[in-house]
């Protein structure tokens, strides 16, 4: 019910970029030198590059003013019937009498995706007032169901079962006894933290990369001090 207006409005938004156009872009195209395509195709990288090059040539030729038609940007801008005056109208997200935060999250993501592909001018007359902090934390948690959570829980359960079995075999402590033992509890804590940090093999590399990146700047600054011994009376290398 609510989703239909979304898809239809998006259809309008995106179909404007194809051949079915509104009259205004046509007029603008006629006014300008005609070297510019007014269409924005979804595969933007190539077209943007071409447009950019053409616009650069144009500005190089005339060293020109900042004209409205020189930088079309997005012809239409982001349009959605629930986006009013720079913020989402939360009343329109009510589903079955309850607030549909999932819908808000999806709508905001769609807006950002649109703006990423078609950057818009930041006009003072139409400021963006929406802040994502308005969405409660539990809505985020319920929304982002990680498929890897299932994987991790399964792995943790298997590890837990076999660890309990082997500790029992080695120390004669059954599960009830293990939960009372300090060393076992500490080992459990370490294992839980380890599972959180090292979920996959690539996490090892990622953490290594993070550590390297964090200290790289320090190394660049200390380079002057490493050369100290080398510079006593030595010739430049």
């Amino acid at each position, binding site marked *: 019910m609510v989703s239909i207006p979304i898809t239809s409005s998006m259809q309008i938004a*995106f179909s404007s970029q194809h051949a079915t156009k509104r009259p205004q872009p046509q007029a603008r195209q006629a006014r300008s030198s005609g070297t510019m395509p007014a269409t924005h195709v*979804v595969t933007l990288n190539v077209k*943007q590059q071409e447009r*950019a090059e053409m*616009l*650069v040539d144009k*500005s190089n030729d005339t*060293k*020109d*003013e*900042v*004209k*409205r038609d020189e*930088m079309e*940007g997005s012809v239409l801008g982001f349009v959605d019937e629930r986006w009013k005056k720079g913020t989402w109208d939360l009343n329109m997200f009510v589903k079955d009498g309850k607030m549909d935060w999932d819908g808000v*999250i*999806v709508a*905001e*993501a*769609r807006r*950002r*995706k*649109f*703006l*990423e*592909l078609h*950057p*818009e*001018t*930041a*006009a*003072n*007359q139409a*400021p*963006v007032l*929406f*802040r*994502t*902090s308005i969405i409660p*934390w539990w809505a*985020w948690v319920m*929304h*982002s169901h990680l498929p890897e959570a299932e994987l991790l829980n399964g792995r943790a359960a298997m590890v837990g079962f076999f660890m309990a079995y082997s500790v029992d075999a080695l120390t004669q402590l059954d599960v009830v006894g293990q939960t009372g033992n300090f060393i076992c509890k500490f080992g459990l804590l370490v294992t839980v933290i380890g599972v959180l940090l090292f979920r996959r093999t690539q996490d090892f590399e990622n953490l290594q990369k993070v550590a390297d*990146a*964090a200290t790289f*700047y*320090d190394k*660049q*600054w200390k*380079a*002057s001090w490493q*050369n*100290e*011994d080398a*510079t*006593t*009376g030595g*010739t*430049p*290398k």
Partner: protein
Amino acid sequence: MASIALKTFTGLRQASPENHHSISLQKAVALPSQTHRRIQIIAGKTSPKITGRNLRVAVIGGGPAGGAAAETLAKGGIETYLIERKLDNCKPCGGAIPLCMVGEFDLPLDIIDRKVTKMKMISPSNVAVDIGQTLKPHEYIGMVRREVLDAYLRDRAADIGATVINGLFLKMDMPTSENQPYVLHYTCYNAKTGGAGEKRTLEVDAVIGADGANSRIAKSINAGDYEYAIAFQERIKIPDDKMKYYENLAEMYVGDDVSPDFYGWVFPKCDHVAVGTGTVTHKGDIKKFQLATRLRARDKILGGKIIRVEAHPIPEHPRPRRLFGRVTLVGDAAGYVTKCSGEGIYFAAKSGRMCAEAIVEGSENGKRMVEERDLRNYLEKWDKTYWPTYKVLDVLQKVFYRSNPAREAFVEMCADEYVQKMTFDSYLYKKVVPGNPLDDLKLAVNTIGSLVRANALRKEMDKMSV
């Protein structure tokens, strides 16, 4: 026996390399009078006294770093030569100086074209946040014209006694042995003779390289390379009613369209605005980024005329070697530009001053020859004083400039008053103040929350097949 006495003398100083000191101390062992001087711990005591003249120091480059260094040297009684290739150079530059620079360098207030008291940060999805509400009435970011500032500092140095030479540094001959002078070769431009200029040489005892990002001094001492960003800027003259909006407001645009690792800006200058952007990793696309910046600010600069296009390199980190013998680098030549904000003017001037102070102290106002370890004192002092600032900005850049979600989180964070206060305090006074731990904790939680939300939206965006 004398050497043992001298070793304890060096043991009282900082933990710099001891073997280095012992090498240079050997030559002074023969003088018995040195032993009873070891109670006084002053740098450069073992260097020979200069007779008949003062220490000669050449400063190559007449920007903020060179001007500040020359002024401090001249005040300290040292024979100073400032070599600048273009005395009316309009260095392309953002032109922002912090409040503390006005006080520390006694800048007259008419040098400052504009006092920026408000900033707008604009996220990739055009969320605009105003920062600057926490500024006190006397606090501002000064916008200057580089040609005005540089000329003022140079003229002040000349008034105190430095010799300003209009010339282009060509190359430098290293000293043949200890305490021999450096021979500088330069082309001297004379306003009267005009034309190509004549080749001259100059003998000096120490050299300060303040000649900017493409420093020739750095090349002659094999200082090594650094990564640098390209900053591209267009000066646009906009109609008066639009200029009123930028009266004391500067804007910063962040986003992948504007720059993958930096930001786009609109800074007000004396009677026009400078619209620009920069990047380290995608230098070839800089024109595309500039167009995107202009697009984002389109309505606010509509009808403007581009009066000038300029670009300049910005170092990203210090050069591997900032000091060699009695030659040292300061300012952009050394690579003292912060990450995240790309600020360099204040640090250039401050490093020039600090280096000159170290030379004045090490040579006892020009009476003794200065040595490498005196200049190393400057490096130590500099690193100790400003390392926290640089590191914090580096962390900020790494965390918040890496992707669009991070930038969204960044702009969201900037709306917080505590963040604004901390940011401006550390920017205007160049001190990293710890702040209230409880507020810091709240800030950390909010930051993580913003980052998590923005990344969750990014995951949602990726799912969409637009």
